[in-house]
């Protein structure tokens, strides 16, 4: 494993790999679940774990400059001591900042925080071609030059290795409260949940199928059989939280539950498989808000266990299969997820699954027509495919 300790050493490693015609798998803490396509052959693992440190945490300005290998949790802790929040919600608390940006996955709290791309003010990166470059800056508003950061965020470690980040921070909310409510079964549940997600001050809202609630741990109301549990986190000024909590109590009989409930939901989606012989196939399906109900119905009819994030237009669907059932089951699950995506007018991605389920397929499904431009972009910035070859859309 290569773990350069500084930006110049990182650039040197990338240049050497390129010169030798070799490729590397880029890793943060290595905590992220296996994502993207299985990589084509790589000679080494390139880790950012030795690139750590919070250089700037400017509370007056509400920004931080952080090395990419820094765990998000470490930044969160320091920011909290200054009354600030890190508006990122990566799947694992141990995720590094670089990993969280490269994956750019939505977490439940993305509803309140906004997308990962909106939090990134500037990036210093090492391109696949070996140059150290930067884009953006430390200020909160900036149109100086092309917005390359948008491309690096969500690039799954292709194009470049993120080395440093200028990140926007937000003030901590005055009050945070989590409310859970039983929502009767039936396909209209996502529509009711959407209305709840749109109440003022809501930071996260998840609708959980009854058969998944057992995994959430204690302190929550029992869902009625075949019903759902709606978990809503509010984070705002105290009067706003009180008002929205009252609305949830009126509409759904919602009660206050332990503050960690939303973290439990996130953990539910990120949990590793528990049984040795059964594998979980985790899909992320997006849908227009007005089509959530339709997308949800397709997934449920096929027996998937679903956590719906109505405010994000996101359905996290889990299929379980026996490992020895192999590829056939994966094909069926993929077909279902794609049918749901069509119903939702969104897209479906096999977000996490064991290697056997990812082998020989594009987990992103059929690439969009713009994949030709994406290939050109990769060819410009990482012409020798040094970084994470094959893991991205269309096998980029």
């Amino acid at each position, binding site marked *: 494993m290569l773990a350069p300790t500084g930006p110049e050493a990182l650039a040197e490693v990338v240049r050497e790999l390129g010169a030798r015609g070799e490729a590397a798998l880029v890793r943060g803490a290595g905590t992220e679940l296996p994502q993207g396509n299985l990589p084509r052959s790589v000679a080494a693992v390139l880790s950012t774990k030795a690139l750590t440190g919070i250089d700037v945490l400017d509370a007056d300005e509400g920004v931080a400059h952080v090395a990419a290998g820094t765990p998000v949790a470490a930044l969160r802790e320091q920011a909290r001591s200054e009354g600030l929040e890190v508006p990122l919600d990566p799947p694992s608390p141990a995720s590094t900042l670089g990993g969280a940006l490269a994956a750019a996955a939505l977490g439940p709290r993305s509803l309140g925080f906004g997308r990962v791309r909106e939090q990134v003010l500037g990036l210093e990166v090492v391109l696949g071609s070996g140059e150290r470059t930067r884009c953006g800056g430390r*200020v909160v508003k900036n*149109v100086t030059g092309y917005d390359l950061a948008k491309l690096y965020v969500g690039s799954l470690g292709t*194009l470049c290795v993120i080395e440093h980040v200028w990140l926007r921070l937000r*003030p901590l909310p005055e009050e945070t409260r989590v409310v859970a409510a039983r929502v009767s079964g039936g396909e209209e549940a996502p529509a009711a949940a959407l209305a709840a997600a749109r109440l003022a001050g809501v930071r996260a809202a998840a609708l959980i199928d009854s058969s998944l609630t057992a995994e959430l741990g204690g302190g929550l109301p029992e869902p009625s059989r075949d019903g759902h549990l709606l978990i809503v986190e509010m984070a705002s000024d105290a009067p706003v939280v009180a008002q929205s909590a009252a609305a949830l109590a009126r509409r759904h009989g919602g009660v206050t539950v332990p503050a960690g409930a939303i973290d439990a939901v996130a953990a539910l989606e990120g949990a590793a498989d528990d049984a040795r012989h059964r594998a979980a196939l985790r899909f992320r399906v997006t849908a*227009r*808000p007005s089509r959530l109900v339709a997308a949800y119905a397709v997934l449920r009819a096929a027996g998937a266990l679903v956590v719906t994030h109505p405010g994000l237009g996101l359905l996290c669907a889990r299929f379980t299969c026996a490992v020895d059932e192999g590829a056939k089951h994966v094909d069926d699950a993929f077909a279902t997820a794609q049918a749901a995506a069509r119903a939702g007018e969104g897209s479906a991605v096999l977000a996490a699954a064991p290697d056997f389920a990812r082998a020989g397929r594009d987990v992103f499904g059929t*690439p969009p027509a*713009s994949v030709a431009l994406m290939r050109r*972009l990769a060819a410009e910035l990482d012409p020798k495919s040094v970084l994470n070859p094959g893991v991205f859309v269309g096998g980029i």
Partner: protein
Amino acid sequence: MQPASSRLIDALRAAAGADAVLWRAGELFVYECDALTHHTGRPAAVVLPRTADEVAACVAACAREGVPFVPRGAGTGLSGGAIAFGGAVVIECARMNRILEIDPVDRVAVVQPGVVNADLSRAAAPFDLHFAPDPSSQQACTLGGNVAENSGGPHTLEYGSTTAHVLAVELVLASGERVRLGSRAGGEPGYDLTGAVVGSEGTFGVVTEVTVRLTPVPEAVETLLAIFPDVVSACHGVGAVIRAGLVPAALEIVDRRTIAAVEASVYAAGLPLDAGAVLIAELDGPAVALPRQVERVRTLCGANGATRVEVARDAAERQRFWRARKGAFGAMGRLAPDLYVHDAVVPRSKLPEVLEAVCAIGDRHGLTLSNVFHAGDGNLHPNISFDRRDEDELRRVLAAGSEILELCVRAGGVISGEHGIGAEKQDFMPLLFTPDDLDAMRRLRAVFDPERRSNPGKIFPTTRFCVESNPKARGYERVSFDP
């Protein structure tokens, strides 16, 4: 500039119709500049297509004739982005001004690029929705221009610049190919090419359709007007509000000179002429949250030297407060024939010292410099009133401009927050970026437009194309209106 070849004119007419092509000198004259009047470039022709197909046909015609093209919206840009270099054809999107769809459940609108910013919010109003980016030019500027410049406005502080509101675009590339990027549901797999197109200043092709998010109209709004003895204490007030963890919808400062100009104009808002500066602070959101926030802002302004804080009692008074801000540029027309609206950003905590230094630069060059700006974002707009026929004054204006940009960069800032680089600031890009940084941008451009035929001569540092774009070489030279 050579007159356009008749072959080019014929090809454009075939592409978009005979009534869609302007080519006579008198017709082209108005396209020589945008709202940054001291940079000019005359196009070979102007074409006004109605559909994406026609745009593609126009672009293809340009390709065949070997001429570059420049997309144009309303021409309100402030960095010379929409002016034509190298005999380019202007593709003006004014006729593509239809709102194709508003979906109140998805909170999404699909529009053509020539739709005027304010028209979209008006059309969304019956659904209690609006398009949040609100440039001060919103009664005129177009969505295509907003996308190209990643425009902001007073309410960017809370809602973010245009990029945060664009879900998908359709683009005609310089090759004539039509591509769709992004998706309405979001989360489309792949690189965020939509994010790269926003802010690309017309150099990636012509945007022919935009899918944007619409934002709920807030339940309640409170607008405060705080009177400060000087602009520096107003900046301290802004710093205190940000540090206190409040997130107002807008925090705008108007300085003494601007107040004087506004009060002498049709936009007069009844501001005290002895005020050193006013801060307009707007808070919006759920009604239950606002009373306490209003009190906190009031207290923080007082603690930082505000002599008086008024809270708008009704919508009419709110509009009166905003008139001082929104009418500022118009009012400055009274001060001198030309206005150079600068645009730079510094960390908000640096505003007091930077503002002081900016004013000192203006004074040192003997210029009329006023400030009206998005203080909450640290986004400065030092405005210099001048007369470009006065060569010496123009020279001082440009010298002061470079000093201001250098000052902002030294303070940890950048050289544009919302107006773009265009033809105005390209030679300042090396203040912020190394050759390798710029090369990464060139490589991105090559993905969309390898032959650099869409809006050439912008953004990247370059030796000037021709004497026409050299501001020092141009006074009020007139073109003849021959047919």
